[in-house]
């Protein structure tokens, strides 16, 4: 998995893997990245006022990988020189463990931050992945966005969130 741009895996995630996947440690002078940004999503101790015990993630794996590819292609379309890697964890996660790792490489920090932020916003919108939250006193499937990759409004909303913080 360490060299893959896109992965869904029961194994613990490593920021180093996604950074390496986008070439952040690459000495190749033909593709110099001036900046690599990364994002790590962690399991929170509390959600909506409840104490979280664990999360169980599942996915439709072949479609999840295609969704990640699509997200990276969208980012590449917005910021032509970026490369994006997305790894998502599956199975049982304890509080504090990483559920998603993303890295973006670009010639300059602006595009790298923007592409990384855009990628996590889109993962939340269109990746076929679900979390089952087990908290003190019960459990619930978390249901967020209705996944529709062709929904321009959602895509634009993701882009607007990025624009507000990064550019």
């Amino acid at each position, binding site marked *: 998995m360490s060299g893959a741009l896109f992965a869904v895996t029961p194994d613990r995630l490593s920021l180093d893997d996604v950074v390496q996947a986008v070439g952040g440690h690459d000495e190749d002078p033909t593709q110099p990245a001036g900046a690599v940004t990364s994002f790590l999503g962690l399991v929170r101790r509390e959600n909506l006022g409840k104490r979280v015990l664990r999360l169980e993630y599942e996915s439709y794996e072949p479609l999840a990988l295609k969704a990640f590819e699509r997200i990276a292609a969208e980012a590449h379309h917005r910021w032509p020189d970026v490369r994006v890697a997305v790894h998502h964890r599956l199975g049982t996660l304890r509080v504090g463990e990483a559920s998603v790792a993303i890295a973006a490489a670009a010639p300059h920090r602006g595009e790298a931050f923007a592409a990384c932020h855009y990628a996590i916003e889109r993962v*939340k919108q269109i990746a076929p992945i679900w979390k089952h939250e087990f908290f003190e006193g019960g459990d619930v499937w978390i249901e967020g*966005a209705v996944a529709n990759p062709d929904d321009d409004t959602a895509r634009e909303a993701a882009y607007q969130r990025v624009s507000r913080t990064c550019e």
Partner: protein
Amino acid sequence: MRVTVRLFARLRDITGTGELTRELPAGATAALLWDTLAKDYADLDSYREAVSTAVNAEYSKMSHPLADGDEVAFLPPVSGG
């Protein structure tokens, strides 16, 4: 024709299985398949407007015509990240 249905998260809990098969008339769409499932499992009905569809691991529309051997996935609202 015969298709395989994949169900995830709460949809899997409702039906009690992540995978099942259905016989459908020629020319059936994913929407017709959903309706036959919702007849068997009434709790699916509340997802009618909130479910996404994939045919052979590609996002598709409910109006997508199905073919024998297709794998049709019904996806409740997602919560990755």
